[in-house]
């Protein structure tokens, strides 16, 4: 039901600086569709420069496909710069909100315990559910998700990965 992130060798993080203007996300996603590139997640947001956005794309692709994906992205006029990030030299995080079924007190305290261990936050407690925020690598979120699955996951929302290279001062 939920996409699981398997961080195998073919898993890549692509970081792109793009013009911050209407239609850019459309051009990028349309390119992926037209050339059958498989995208696992894509996030877009503002950067330190007002007129630029950063797109972080994760994909499971072999080297040849990744090479084409990067080159085709670079060809887009609104794309300023594209880098494949070395996951060992990159900080990357994903945020997820997980609404878990929890009616009886034992379940509730178990979930709260797990959330603490995973350094998550309890965002909301209702009569039948607890909503937890977990931030981390996709693996960590998968691990938490697998742990609480037996209680029943009512709803789940993941943001996709956001990433920056470690150290240095790179734009």
């Amino acid at each position, binding site marked *: 039901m939920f996409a699981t992130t398997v961080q195998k060798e073919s898993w890549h993080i692509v970081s792109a600086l*793009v*013009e911050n203007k209407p*239609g850019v996300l*459309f*051009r990028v996603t*349309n390119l992926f569709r*037209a050339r059958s590139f498989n995208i696992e997640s894509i996030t877009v947001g503002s950067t330190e420069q007002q007129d630029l956005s950063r797109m972080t794309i994760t994909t499971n692709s072999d080297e*040849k496909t990744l*090479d*084409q994906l990067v*080159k*085709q992205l*670079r*060809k*887009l*006029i*609104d*794309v*300023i710069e594209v880098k494949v990030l070395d996951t060992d030299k990159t900080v990357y995080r994903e945020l997820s909100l997980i609404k878990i079924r929890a009616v009886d007190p034992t379940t509730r305290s178990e979930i709260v315990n797990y959330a603490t261990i995973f350094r998550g936050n309890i965002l909301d407690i209702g009569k039948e559910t607890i909503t937890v925020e977990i931030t981390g690598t996709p693996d960590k979120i998968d691990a938490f998700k697998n742990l609480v699955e037996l209680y029943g996951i009512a709803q789940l929302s993941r943001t996709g990965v956001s990433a920056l290279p470690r150290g240095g001062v790179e734009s």
Partner: protein
Amino acid sequence: MTGAKALIQALEKEGVDVVFGLPGGANLPIYDALVDANFRHILVRHEQAAAHMADGYARIKRKAGVCFATSGPGATNLITGIATAYADSSPILAVTGQVPLAMIGKDAFQETDIIGVANPCTKYSFQPRSAAEIPEMIKKAVYIAESGRPGPVLVDIPKDVQQATVDMKFPELIKVRGYNPNVEADLSEMVRAVELLLNAERPIIMAGGGVILSGAFSELQALAELVKIPVVSTFKGKGAFPENHPLAMGPIGMHGHAEANKIILEADCIVAVGARFSDRSVGKFDEFGKGMSIIHMDIDPAEIGKNKSVDVALVGDVKSSLRTLVKMLSKKIIKKDSDNPWLKRRKELIQYYAETLKDYPREITARKSLKKLRELLPANAIVTTEVGQCQMWASLHFDVITPGTFFSSTGLGTMGFGFPASIGAKAARPNVPVVDIAGDGSFNMTENSLAVSVLDKLPVIVFLMNNYMLGMVAQWQRTFYNRRYSGVHQHNCPDYVKIADAYGAQGIRAESMHELEKAIKAALKSDVATVIDIPIDPEEDVYPFVAPGTGLKDMITGA
């Protein structure tokens, strides 16, 4: 100044001398401003033709061809032409009208999200939200269309933006931040290319469309002559190299010249110049070029390794790369014997197939007609084609002598392209004869451009090899579907001589080689368009043939 006026002035500043188009509700302000323009407007009968005309113009002028259409159906009618230009990297600038800003997204009358529709087949697109943006956008649009790997650019202008009056500034210089088309090939890669070429025993040049787009004709010839390399081309690269040159071998591919398809498999080093290893040229990607070294020159980095992994990549304008390569090679090369075994093999193959491949047994055949056409046309005549059997026959039997005088819809394979494109080419170079090598199926699709050819005094010659069949489809049905014909017969309709006559053009039926010769001579003298209707036997196939999904080694040379 209004936005519409600014558009016209911006185009004038870009040196535009002709625009092809058709007005409608959403581009009325543009057409009003057009009355005072210092360039020519050519009114088409269908917007698809406007895009093809702009494309034909662009391929001959090697600068952006411009077309206008209104919103909605006017704009969507352009799409086939835009996609054709995109597939063949041709610089066209399409300017469409759009519903007023406040109506966008309201499903207004004649509203289409044309930017969205055109996205996969445009290099870039613009939609000004205020009139003041127009001058800079047009300058950027032309720059993007013409530079690097050329391609179509769309400018979609809402009607109220055309009407708005603001102070205009026309920029002298523009910069597009994410776009750096001027790349030079890496010098270390160049050194490796020199080494590979010096050590190759059986080198071959595969000239692609990039040579024509870059105008690198003399540079290509210099390389071929210096190293004594036989030159094959892709179909799009047909005419990048004079086909009567002692090193020429003609196009490879699905309907390539037999000797070209044969020799490229025997080579040990391929220099692909501005070519993209398309399936129609090389057959199976994995099979092609096995055991050979490949040097790939292209201006588009994304072409490197897309269809074919290569040994050396020279990314940059092929004209500049060829120049550098020739300069570096000429310091090292010892005059190669012009009678080496490899060049002997070239002659041997040409001779073998000249003796082996028989023409279809009829008084008039495609081969005979096209040889006759070549004989009677001046070397600098411009030739384009429709799509299908006529196109492949042109590739096989019509030799291009002056480089850059042949083009066709090679990538998208757009039926109906040739005739309007030939009119665009005529507008670009009015003083040379322009011929559309046509089939009836394709000519049918855009034959109403006869009105444009006659009224705008752009007389072209439609060389119509008429079998009243969708001939290539029929050939595939004969070959792969046990002759079960489906949807291919045109049942002797229409009468093309009468069609020509109805538009005030000249129609001549040529039923013998003698009549054909007379017709071509009459057409060359005519000051109106001429349709030469040449009855071709509907059973005549195009050979050689490399079936789809097979390799060049599986070429079939006859029935």
